[in-house]
């Protein structure tokens, strides 16, 4: 537990000093929302219906780039080897990295979500509590898988292309659940999306536990 907190603090400190992932995530998030909105070219009546899809697709692609950036940093100067030689359980490394990625992804969401709302004329303030629940559930599930596969892909030969290729098909249930739950929240309330929220919770639990158990096999030398 203390090991995980130390890794979280280390990752956040690196990020705060370089602001490299944050900057790229910010710009890419803005760009993706703009590109998706322009490509759809919706009428003002149809625009709010696009918010859930635009928001989550921008989030997923921005998140992949942000998390990949973090693991490629770890490759330089063999930092990961140093981490592994520290007296830490690999599961603690996973937990720390997961927490750091959740923070990074929350920043991504803080950029992408309001922008999607503004550009596509959806008033998000009144539904904020329900929306925050869905955003957090989607964030944790995405981070759970992306942390495992970011570490995995960073250590393969074709690392830049492999991470999105491996991650995207596995993320489809999360994407469906998150988009449907967000739609329900925008239409009135979380109550209508009980099944979608259940999918999100199951996704979070299953892959957080799987990542926690399997991470040792990914980083072991």
């Amino acid at each position, binding site marked *: 537990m203390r090991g995980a907190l130390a890794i979280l603090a280390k990752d956040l400190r690196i990020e705060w000093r370089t602001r490299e992932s944050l900057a790229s995530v910010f710009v890419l998030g803005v760009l993706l929302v703009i590109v998706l909105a322009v490509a759809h070219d919706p009428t003002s009546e149809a625009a709010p219906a696009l918010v859930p899809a635009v928001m989550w697709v921008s989030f997923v692609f921005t998140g992949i780039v942000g998390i990949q950036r973090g693991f490629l940093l770890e490759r330089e100067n063999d930092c990961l080897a140093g981490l592994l030689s520290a007296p830490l359980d690999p599961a603690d490394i996973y937990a720390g990295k997961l927490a750091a990625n959740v923070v990074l992804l929350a920043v991504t969401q803080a950029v992408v979500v309001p922008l999607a709302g503004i550009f596509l004329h959806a008033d998000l303030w009144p539904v904020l509590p329900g929306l925050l629940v869905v955003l957090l559930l989607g964030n944790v599930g995405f981070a759970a*898988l992306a942390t*495992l596969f970011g570490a995995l892909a960073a250590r*393969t030969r074709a690392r830049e292309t492999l991470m999105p290729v491996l991650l995207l098909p596995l993320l489809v*249930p999360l994407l469906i659940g998150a988009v449907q739950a967000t739609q329900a929240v925008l239409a009135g309330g979380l109550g209508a999306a009980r099944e*979608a929220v259940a999918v999100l919770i*199951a996704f979070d639990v299953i*892959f957080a536990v799987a990542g926690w158990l399997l991470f040792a096999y990914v980083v072991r030398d």
Partner: protein
Amino acid sequence: MRRVLPPLVCVSMLAALWLVFMAVPTEREMGIVQRIFYFHVASAWVAFLGFFLVAGASVVYLWNGTRAADRLAEAAAEVGVLFCTLVLITGPIWARPVWGVWWTWDPRLTMTVILWAIYASYLMLRAFGGEDEAVRRYAAVLGIVGVLDIPLIRVSVRLLRGIHPSVITRNEGGSGLVDPWMRAGLGVSSLALLLLAAWLIALRTRTARLAEEVVALRREALARGGEAA
């Protein structure tokens, strides 16, 4: 295995072809195109079995590191993707005349194409990840995560709109396989494809083992050559 499987595959495949094209009656509403169903559904079952075999072999490989388990996982993934591809080819051939479109985002179609993508990415990892022991471990991790994803995909795609017929599970009011010949056709064609898959997996694991032996021998020969010079 290598002796028994080929004749079994031949016999069952001929029996399946005879049943599907000669014995089974033509479906009343869909007509002749419905006969593709016997291969479509059987391929889907075999593909699913292949994917679960990947996960099982992956668990064994992470557990004790036996190379045979790793080779089995790889062979099962290749054969699973092959049969999943057959499902995705035979489905649209049937859907075009019956539904009027090649593809729709129905739950079952969505699920099949996502599974295909997961295991195609598994083969990508195998092909482009590198050659060493680490990549075999990564593939095993992906094989396990992929099968954990299946129930989630199954539940989540139900949130989409659906039109796919469920012939086997829902059997009301004249739909479903009413004719005993139809049931025989599905049973025998499933058996034929299952045996074919087993044969392909046996051949594929053997090829992988031989390839590993060749690499080992070449390394040994190089080492000896180095000593001589």
